[in-house]
């Protein structure tokens, strides 16, 4: 089925960049078209106001196709979340493989994450800004996602770091990370992304290195 114009345009905007999504990610089959349509519709209207009609229009498929794959909007949303999460966690793993030393790995992973969110602003809004306003319908999927992101960013921490954060501390850092990523995702005009990147790095490093050392590493690499 040919894509509707607006839908095709939305889909084309998804892929670019080294850590962007591959073309196959969005066009391989109709199920993924629907997921990409959901991402576009939710990013534009918020979860609650994005209807199945908006989703199918953005995906350029019929309503019947939607129901061939999903029975509810929620199901399609969660499928999109799973796909985005596995893509992102894989990209972070790849980015970390390049870095020498743990702090270099952390820095590379944070940069990879911010690049994904920058080149795919729809995904940033879909995954971070929209869920909190959806109520508990989405089962705290965004919270789970951010906690996995934090684990992916800080994984392989050597035992010799000056501090070993407690579970509670890491949970709170995940909350801080979520709030900074939402600011990043909301793209306000005068947003200083370079500075936000430093603050984010400092936030995730501090529980392991202590505040001062984290600040130095964030600034000097």
């Amino acid at each position, binding site marked *: 089925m040919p894509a509707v114009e607006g839908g095709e345009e939305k889909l084309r905007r998804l892929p670019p960049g080294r850590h962007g999504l591959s073309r196959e990610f969005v066009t391989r089959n109709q199920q993924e078209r629907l997921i990409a349509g959901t991402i576009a519709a939710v990013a534009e209207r918020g979860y609650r106001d994005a209807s199945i009609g908006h989703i199918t229009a953005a995906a350029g498929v019929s309503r019947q196709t939607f129901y061939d794959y999903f029975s509810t909007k929620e199901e399609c949303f969660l499928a999109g979340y799973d796909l985005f999460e596995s893509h992102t966690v894989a990209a972070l793993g790849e980015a970390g493989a390049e870095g020498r030393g743990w702090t270099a790995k952390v820095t590379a992973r944070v940069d990879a994450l911010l690049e994904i969110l920058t080149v795919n602003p729809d995904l940033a809004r879909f995954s971070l800004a929209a869920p909190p306003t959806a109520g*508990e*319908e989405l089962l705290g999927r965004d919270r789970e996602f951010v906690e996995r992101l934090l684990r992916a960013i800080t994984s392989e921490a050597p035992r010799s770091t000056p501090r070993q954060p407690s579970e509670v501390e890491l*949970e709170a850092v995940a909350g*801080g990370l*979520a*709030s900074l990523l939402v*600011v990043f995702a909301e793209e306000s005009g005068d947003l200083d992304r370079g500075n936000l990147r430093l603050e984010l790095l400092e*936030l995730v490093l501090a529980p392991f290195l202590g505040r001062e050392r984290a600040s130095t590493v964030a600034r000097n690499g």
Partner: protein
Amino acid sequence: MPAEEHAQRRRREILASVTDVFAKRGYQGATIDHLVAGGKTSMGGFYKLFDGKEDCFVQAFDQVVDEATVDAPRPGDAQADWGARVSACLLALLEFAAAKPFSARLVLLEAQSGGPEAVRRYNELLGEAAAGLRAGRSESSATPDLPASFEDATVSGIVWLMQNRLARGTAIDVDELHPQLTKMVLEPYLGRKALTKAMRRR
């Protein structure tokens, strides 16, 4: 009892009951019928107090916040220093959420889906908490070079932690959380040594 006082008490009772309805059903899931039944009032009684569901939610939100902050120390309190006040505020917050999980749920989880006014109040509340923390930058002897977003991230972290527990329906363990959170929040301002000393003093 004067009629005015009676009406006020009745309003508070209804707000307490609808708080539980919102917490159990979620803002989106709660209907006017649910709220009327839960509040043990009539449709007419409901609309005398509230313009509708959103207004009812916002009034319930305000009542919970008033209740939760009534005993919290204020910046003007002379007897406590900034660190002790932050610690006491954290304790009050955790104890309130542990004792009244439905009320905490309404404010921390449901408000974000409770319409523009509820979202505005929720953000304002978090902003006030961040401003209270920010005051620590000038109180500390060794003024630390903290990032601009530090307080927002800290407040979001504490809220996040509570949201996780409220959403899962697991208890808020005050004895586990309070010492860890106090240390986590105060250390960047006071430094490790000064904090250890202050905690030992208390």
